[in-house]
């Protein structure tokens, strides 16, 4: 399937271009083609992809390639940084009214998460910004939309305003009056979802906009939105003069290319990201994370940079020499695991290594939990035992299990993993001779196959 083969394809290109020291049109082209595909698969708009890759190409030609990195890795890094910079440009927090009431209008297509986001935004404003918040229910069309908003408002403790199925323009205007009279800091207005072709509803939105003069008009964009997202944003922007965008449903696995498309074409800042189902799952927008996500490929360069910082090279040399000599102990395994851990969570590392299959949340959690178990078990051994695990008998294991708060089976698992790693080291030695270097990441055997 398309999405899985992507990293493999990159792998091939990486190999071909090893050892070239300057970016040229020739050595960039193959990579740019793949990047184009990656962006399109992330649902970045076609025109944006074209313009964007051209921009990048112009900027990159002639640049020196960092040591230890090959030209295509360099291109990935440049593209990544470029996306990050673009997404981050003109980023601002919420615009509050100079004095008095700030009005925020939430608009968007049906099902993008306006009502849920109204709740999340309310919670954010109350807890993080210490504002007194009221929310007005102006979606009078979708069955039970009002009830949904009322429940949500109750959950986060903001004042709820509704006039039932009255004219939404009227509701907005009354809500504003009440908010002013009762000295609220912020009025959120939830509106009906609409298809952009719906002129009647669009007209209603324009009227609300005109009536209450909001300080912020925020468009909700679903992370899974397709090529049409730009047209949607343009239509709303044309009629309402948007002030920003909130990306919703970023907890899914959609790559969210819409963020790049909309930003590139409209310049609207992306202000928040919805990252889960709980009311607290709204966070400021992080351009760098988004760039990772849209590009969807391990940021090889980051890995190289990070790896260089963290790994103590001498230590590693020693360890790998020991490993290859078959002189590999539980202590070494733990040390290795810890060094790898310093790079970031296992999930983050796995994402950075091309060719590494994507881990599910569950797998990631399991792997990280396992690391902790390993550490506590190894720490419960005496130094001698760590160096000579072969002496461990039943009674030793019993003691270790108790001391670490785990079971005998867990202890056996650690030893088994250790033996597997050790065997792997020996095999490697046979194949790679003396310059085999650092290989199997011992303790991470379950993840396997990682190469730096």
């Amino acid at each position, binding site marked *: *399937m*398309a*999405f899985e083969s992507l990293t493999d394809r990159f792998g091939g290109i990486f190999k071909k271009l090893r050892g070239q020291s300057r970016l040229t049109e020739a050595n960039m082209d193959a990579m740019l083609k793949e990047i184009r*595909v990656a962006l*399109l*698969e*992330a*649902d970045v*708009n*076609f025109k944006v992809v074209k313009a964007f890759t051209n921009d990048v190409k112009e900027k990159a030609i002639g640049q020196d390639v960092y040591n230890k990195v090959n030209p295509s890795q360099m291109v990935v890094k440049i593209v990544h940084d470029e996306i990050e910079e673009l997404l981050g440009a003109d980023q601002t927090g919420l615009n509050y009214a100079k004095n008095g009431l700030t009005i925020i209008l939430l608009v968007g*297509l*049906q*099902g*993008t*998460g306006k*009502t*849920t986001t109204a709740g999340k935004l309310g919670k954010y404003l109350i807890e993080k910004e210490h504002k007194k918040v009221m929310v007005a229910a102006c979606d009078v069309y*979708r*069955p*039970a*939309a*009002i*009830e*949904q*908003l009322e*429940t*949500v408002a109750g*959950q986060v403790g903001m004042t709820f305003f509704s006039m039932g199925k009255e004219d939404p323009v009227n509701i907005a205007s009354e809500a504003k009056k009440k908010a002013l009279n009762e000295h609220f800091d912020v009025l959120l207005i939830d509106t009906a979802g609409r*298809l*952009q*072709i*719906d002129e009647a509803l669009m007209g209603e939105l324009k009227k609300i906009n005109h009536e209450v003069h909001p300080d912020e008009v925020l468009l909700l964009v*679903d*992370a*899974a*939105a*397709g*090529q*049409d*997202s730009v*047209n*949607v944003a343009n239509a709303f922007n044309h009629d309402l003069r948007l002030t920003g965008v909130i990306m919703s*449903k970023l*907890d*899914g*696995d*959609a*790559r969210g*290319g*819409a963020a790049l498309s909309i930003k590139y074409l409209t310049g609207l800042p992306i202000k928040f990201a919805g990252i889960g*189902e709980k009311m607290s799952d709204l966070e400021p927008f992080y351009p760098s994370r988004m760039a990772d996500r849209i590009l969807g490929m391990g940021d090889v360069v980051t890995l190289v940079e990070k790896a260089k910082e963290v790994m103590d090279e001498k230590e590693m040399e020693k360890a790998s020499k020991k490993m290859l000599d078959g002189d590999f102990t539980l202590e070494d395994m733990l040390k290795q695991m810890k060094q790898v851990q310093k790079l970031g969570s296992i999930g983050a590392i796995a994402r950075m290594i091309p060719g590494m299959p994507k881990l*599910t*949340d*569950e797998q990631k959690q399991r792997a990280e939990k396992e690391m902790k178990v390993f550490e506590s078990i190894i720490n419960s051994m005496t130094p001698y035992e760590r160096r000579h695990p072969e002496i461990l008998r039943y009674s030793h294991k019993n003691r270790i299990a108790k001391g670490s708060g785990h079971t005998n089976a867990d202890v056996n698992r650690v030893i088994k993993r250790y033996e597997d790693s050790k065997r792997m080291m020996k095999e490697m030695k046979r194949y790679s001779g003396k310059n085999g270097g650092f290989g199997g990441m011992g303790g991470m055997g379950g993840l396997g196959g990682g190469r730096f």
Partner: protein
Amino acid sequence: MGLFSFLKNKFSKKGDAPEKEKKEEQSLETYSKGLEKSRKNFASRLDALSKRYAKVNSDYFEELEQVLIESDVGVDLSLRLIENLLDQSEKQKISDPKAINEMLVDNMFVDYATRGESVENEIRFNENGPTVLLVVGVNGVGKTTSIAKLAHHYQEKGKKVLLVAGDTFRAGATTQLKIWAERLNCPIVVGKENGDPASVAYDGCQYAKNNDIDLIIVDTAGRQQTKANLMQELAKINRVLGREIEGAPHDTFLIIDGTTGQNGVLQAKAFKEVTNLTGIVITKMDGTSKGGIILSIRDELGVPVRFIGLGERMEDLQEFDLDKYLYGLLLGESRDD
């Protein structure tokens, strides 16, 4: 030879039509209207393109590729279609843009029609006891509304329909379905807020067995396909349904928002893993100029589209008919020419 003339023939107006054909006529109308935006983006652009070029060249193919990708057809499939087209045009020495376009459309949908088994759109009704339709999808795709429309569709066919409010999570979801049940005048089984949806499903089965229900439609909470625990919850609902009624759920529909991009494929894939996905319902097709996702999903997973949402009215949820779809996408109101 082409698809165009086939469609024109098939759907040419036939003066005073009997009652049955009137219905067909209306259905065609719905397709034509609901796909107006898509048509403008796809057929009209192909048309304009063919007028700009006297002969096809590499630029022409590049522009075709753009039209496909911008219709959310998916990069992989788009590239493949264009490659095949290049091949064919070289072999058959065709350089007329119009002919190339017809070839492209043929390829797109021949592919669609031949992949996966041919499908009966209608639900297969269980001969002994109630039939169960489970409805799943990510958040905000229009599950509840589609359920109401499906219920209406089967009520029209004389079936006794029961709604089961299995979305106990989203605030207001149960109320929303209740309002629909009232409007449709059909019974509904609801559970406690934040209660176990599987237990609501169980109650629904009991109610159906005791009240001669023909069709149970089970709503579920929207869930991002990456959440392992929520997907497990679906598996549990599945098990409970199967235990209570033999063979249930008889059909499982995944609802996909027509404005969704390439993630639609991943959604379908993930849901296919935990449920026995038998069909796809594409919603909000009238609001998007894209909808190429229909092709991508069929291409990658072989799960058929069973219904398609072409507007907000009850009857705008139509059984998916490839010929009508193509007619709406390619020809539309130009029928009388």
